[in-house]
C-alpha cells in the first residue's frame, strides 16, 4: 500500500498542472483548430465544415506576411544573439561578485509594461522627436529621413524586447564553464580566439540553442512592435490575425492563420533542432 502511494505521488503532485494544461491549453487549441474549419459569423453562429480549402486560402492570401514574420523573426533573433552574447560573456567571466547587480540592471526595463516600453521607442524614434528632430534641423539627416514604420524600427523593437530573454540562458551556461579549460586550451597552442571557438562556443551551445528558440518563437508571432513602430509595409502575421479577430471579426480566418503559423513554427523548430541541435554543434567543434 505504501509502495503504491509512493508510486502515485509524482502523478498526484503533477495533477494540478495537467488539469491546468487541459483547461487552458488543450481545449482552446482544439477549439482554435475547429474554428479554422468552421463557417458562419459571430451573430448567426458557426457550423463545422470540412472546407480545408479555406485554410489554404488563408495562407495564400497572406503569404507575404508569413514570409515577413519569419524574416523579421530570424533577423531580430540573430541580432539579439550577437548583442547579448558579449554581455552575458562579460557578466559571467568578468563581473566578479557584482554578477547579480548587472543581471538586475538588464532585467530592470522589464519591470515596465511591454506596451509602454514599445511606446517609449515610438516616442524616441518619431520623425520630429528629440533624437531625429535636432539632427534634421542641423542638416545631418535629410528631412525625408525616418526610422518609424520601416522594417528596421520593427526589427529594432523586437531586438530590444528580447535582449534580456537571450542574456539569461546564455549567462546560465557561460557561468558554468570552467575557466581553467581556457587556460588548458591556451596551453595546448590555441590562441585566445581559437580557444573561444573550440571551447567556449561549443560549451555554451545549449544556451545559444535555448535562447534562440525562446526569442525566435516569441518574435515570429509578435504584433505589438509592428503595430506601434511599423507601418503598412511591415505587417506581420500577428497583425493580420489581430485585425481578423478584432476588426473584421472573421474568426475562422484568424484561427486558420494561427493554426498555419503554429504548424510552420513547429516544422521550423524541428528542422532547426535537427540541424543545430546541441550535439551537432559540439560534434562540429571537434
Amino acid at each position, binding site marked *: 500500500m505504501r509502495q503504491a502511494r509512493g508510486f502515485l505521488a509524482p502523478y498526484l503532485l503533477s495533477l494540478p498542472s495537467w488539469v491546468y494544461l487541459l483547461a487552458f491549453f488543450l481545449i482552446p487549441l482544439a477549439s482554435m483548430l475547429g474554428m479554422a474549419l468552421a463557417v458562419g459569423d459571430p451573430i448567426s453562429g458557426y457550423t463545422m465544415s470540412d472546407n480545408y480549402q479555406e485554410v489554404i486560402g488563408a495562407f495564400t492570401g497572406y503569404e507575404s506576411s508569413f514570409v515577413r514574420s519569419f524574416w523579421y523573426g530570424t533577423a531580430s533573433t540573430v541580432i539579439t544573439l550577437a548583442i547579448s552574447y558579449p554581455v552575458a560573456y562579460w557578466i559571467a567571466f568578468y563581473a566578479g561578485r557584482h554578477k547579480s547587480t548587472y543581471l538586475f540592471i538588464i532585467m530592470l526595463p522589464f519591470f515596465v509594461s511591454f506596451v509602454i516600453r514599445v511606446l517609449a521607442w515610438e516616442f524616441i524614434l518619431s520623425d520630429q522627436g528629440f533624437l531625429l528632430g535636432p539632427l534634421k534641423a542641423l542638416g545631418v539627416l535629410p528631412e525625408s529621413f525616418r526610422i518609424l514604420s520601416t522594417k528596421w524600427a520593427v526589427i529594432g523593437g523586437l531586438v530590444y524586447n528580447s535582449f534580456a530573454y537571450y542574456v539569461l540562458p546564455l549567462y546560465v551556461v557561460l557561468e558554468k564553464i*570552467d575557466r*581553467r*579549460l581556457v*587556460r*588548458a*586550451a*591556451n*596551453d*595546448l*597552442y*590555441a*590562441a*585566445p580566439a*581559437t*580557444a573561444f571557438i*573550440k*571551447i567556449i562556443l*561549443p*560549451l555554451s551551445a545549449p544556451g545559444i540553442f535555448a535562447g534562440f528558440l525562446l526569442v525566435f518563437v516569441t518574435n515570429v508571432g509578435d504584433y505589438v512592435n509592428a503595430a506601434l513602430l511599423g507601418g503598412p509595409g511591415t505587417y506581420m502575421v500577428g497583425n493580420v490575425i489581430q485585425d481578423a479577430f478584432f476588426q473584421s471579426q472573421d474568426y475562422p480566418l484568424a484561427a486558420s492563420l494561427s493554426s498555419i503559423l503554429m504548424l510552420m513554427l513547429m516544422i521550423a523548430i524541428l528542422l532547426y533542432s535537427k540541424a543545430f541541435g546541441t550535439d551537432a554543434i*559540439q560534434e562540429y*567543434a*571537434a
Partner: protein
Amino acid sequence: MIPAPSTRHDVRLENVIKQFGGWTAVDNISLSIEGGEFFSLLGPSGCGKSTTLSMIGGFESPSAGAIYLDGEDVSRQPSYKRDVNTVFQSYALFPHLTIFENVAFGLRRKGVKSDEVTRRTNEMLELVDLAGFAKRKPGQLSGGQAQRVALARALVNKPKLLLLDEPLGALDLKLRKQMQIELKRIQSEVGITFLFVTHDQEEAMAMSDRLAVMSKGRIEQIGTPADVYDHPATEFVASFLGASNLLPGTITAQNGAQAQVTLEDGAIITLPRAVLAQIAGDKVKIGVRPEKFHVLQPGEPRPDGWNEIEAIAGVSVYLGVSRQYEMESKTGRALSVYAQNSGRQEDIPPGSAVRLTWNPAHTFAVTGT
C-alpha cells in the same frame, strides 16, 4: 664532453619576481633544471610554487627577472606559443570532446597532418594504457583515467618541458603510489624534462632527480632528495621534509675534519666540520632524524666515536615497520625516535631512562638563534 641529446631541453630561471598588488608571491628565485631531469618544486600551499609554475607555463608573466627555455628568453611569450605543456591539478579535460580529441587537441592546433595526428594520438593513448577509451567522453572516466588522459594530452605534443601541477592530489593513496611509478616510467621512456609541483614531500622525494624546497616565495634549498633530507639547510626544510629533532647548542671547537658542539645540558656532540660550513656565528641547532637514533640497552657501550644523549621515554605508537617513541631530553626538549621493528629490541616502557646514540655523520646543523 658528450652533447646532450636533442630531445633534452633545459630551463633556467633568473631572479624571477612575481608581485600581485603589494603581495610578493615569488621573491627573487633562480634555478636551473637540466634537460631530461625530473625536478620538483616542493612547499606548503601559498609558498609560490604554483605561481612559479604559472610563469614557466606562460599563464603569468614575471614582474621582474627572466625565464629561459633552451637558452631562449621566453618570459614574454604567451602560453599558446610556448613549447611547454601542463598537466593541470583539475586535469581540465574538455568535457565536450572525446578522449581522442582531447589528446589530439594540441597537435591539431599546431597543424599536424591528420593521419599523423591519428597515429601519434593512438600511440600516446597506448602509452598511458587507455587505447580502448578513445571514443569516450571525459565524464565517463575515473579519476585515475582522467589523470592519464591529461598526461597524454600534454605529452603527445612532445614539449620541451612538461609541467605537472599537483596532478596526483585528487587520487586516493593506492592509486597515487601507482601513478608515481607510472609517471617515472613514462618520463624515462619519453625523456622529456619534467617539472613537478607538489606539497607532498614523500611524493617529491620518491619521484625527483632533484627538488627545490620553497617557502614564502623563496627557495630554501635545492638538491637531490637525499641531500635535502639528510642535510637540510634551514630549520624550515628540516621540519618540512619529515620529522626532525633539533637541539640548540654552541660551536666550541673546529679542528681538522671534526667539530664539536656543546648542547644546553653540557653534553658535547661531535660532527663533521663540513656540516657547519653554512652556519654564521657560533649559535647552532644540531639536527638528527628520528630513525638515525639508536636506543642503547642498559650497560651497552655506544659504538666507537658515536654521540650520546640521555632521554626519558614517553608514549609510543606502533606502526608495523617501526615503533615511534615520543621522548624528552634532559632539558625538556621533545624528541622523536623511530625504532625499526627488526625484532632485536624489547619495547621501551614509558618513563624509563634511556641513552640515545647516533653516528656523527648523520648529524646536520642549521643556524641557531
